[in-house]
């Protein structure tokens, strides 16, 4: 609310120059198109990173619940280590450093801004998804695992048919939060030159000198994206909830 008053006050004093993104003018129209074209990259980047993060997270989480501490250890170390690295330094390391490491190992892989950002987001987020899986899986009553064992299921079958289908309902809301987090953090990809929402806004600001209007629109773009995701998740939760009781 405060922000709205502030914005209203600004407009009254003539601070605003909305012409820069006014679709009625050809300049504004072109600018808006330029900005909105960042949606595709932001969405694709976030989606791939989220899917990867969910896979890595599961692979990390499962051994983390072993009763054997030596099996648990690598998972613990991974989570603590990855969680401790801020996103931006990790992005720089992956984008500028990782190709050098790979090259020294004889792999000449070119990591472009798109994949650099995806790898970073997926790795960084996987430590959190791993913890989400762990708490979700551990919240399922131990009796379920025991019953699965007494009907002959092995570990993989127990996870696949008994534990994960029950845990997913509890895991889904925090996973959705993580997806929203990834969408927002994908803005960092702009600093390595990825043409997503934030990068485009920055470039336009440099040519048009209207940071207030352009960044305001940028924030609204993320807001719309996040609202769409969260309503999608609520729909999914309702659907799964009704399945359970039926």
């Amino acid at each position, binding site marked *: 609310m405060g922000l709205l008053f502030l914005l209203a006050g600004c407009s009254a004093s003539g601070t605003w120059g909305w012409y820069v993104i006014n679709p009625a003018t050809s300049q504004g129209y072109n600018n808006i198109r330029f900005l909105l074209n960042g949606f595709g990259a932001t969405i694709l980047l976030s989606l791939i990173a989220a899917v990867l993060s969910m896979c890595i997270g599961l692979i990390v989480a499962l051994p983390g619940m072993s009763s054997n501490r030596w099996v648990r250890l690598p998972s613990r170390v991974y989570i603590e280590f990855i969680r401790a690295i801020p996103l931006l330094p990790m992005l720089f390391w992956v984008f500028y450093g990782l190709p050098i490491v790979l090259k020294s190992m004889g792999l000449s892989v070119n990591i472009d801004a798109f994949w650099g950002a995806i790898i970073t987001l997926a790795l960084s987020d996987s430590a959190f998804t791993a913890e989400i899986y762990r708490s979700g899986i551990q919240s399922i009553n131990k009796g*379920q695992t025991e*019953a699965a064992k*007494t009907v002959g*299921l092995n570990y993989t079958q127990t996870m696949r048919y008994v534990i994960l289908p029950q845990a997913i309902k509890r895991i889904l809301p925090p996973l959705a939060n993580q997806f929203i987090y990834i969408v927002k953090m994908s803005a960092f990809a702009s600093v390595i030159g990825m043409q997503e929402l934030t990068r485009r806004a920055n470039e336009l600001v440099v040519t048009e000198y209207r940071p207030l209007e352009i960044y305001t629109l940028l924030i609204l773009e993320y807001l719309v994206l996040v609202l769409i995701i969260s309503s999608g998740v609520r729909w999914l939760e309702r659907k799964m909830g009704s399945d359970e009781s039926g």
Partner: protein
Amino acid sequence: MPGKAKAIEIKGLSKWFGDYQALKDIDLNVAHGERIVICGPSGSGKSTLIRCINSLETHDFGQITVDGIELNQSKASVAAIGAEVGMVFQQFNLFPHLSILQNLTLGPMKARALSKAAAEKRAMRYLERVHIPEQAHKKPSQLSGGQQQRVAIARSLCMEPKIMLFDEPTSALDPEMIAEVLDVIVDLAEDGMTMICVTHEMGFARRAADRMVFMDNGEIIETGSPSEFFDAPKTERCKTFLNQILQH
């Protein structure tokens, strides 16, 4: 009985939970077709004992042999014994996200590679045996406690075990549902199933047990036929326990 393996042979079994010794040097033999009821105060190690038999708990010392297979830490022995032993839990532990039928067919299909049709046929046979075939397509949460426990029994039977373990199968039930579950267990007993049942239902014990085992403090204090056990308990501890439990 030389030459013929017992259903279950337990020798010198001990188990600790940290510093607490839950089982102290337990010896127990169960013959094929024998029905044993284990009773005793809570914390006496009854549940731990039967959970050791199907390796839901690992034991620290001693030997467990089921149908000639010695239980060690190898996956092969755990699986081989698991295939012989069925278990019914106090809290039923049905899979809440699956229908009753799916609860019954999951094990046979995934662990025994039965076809869906064969598994469903078998499931319906055992649901009829526990008198609730009409509930096959409901979810566990739509059934009463007694019905859920009967489904749990049927789920175990679907794996066609030679031995059934019951861990206080009626303790979580409302009183009016206890009989329907005990009737099913008695029915199984009369069919010659080898079983060990941990329970406080003394009427049931008299009706169904070949032998009573009384445990206290991680030890087997007394064993005997139901008539010896109820009418002439030998030890003070057992007398006290029976007095407490039969007063109500």
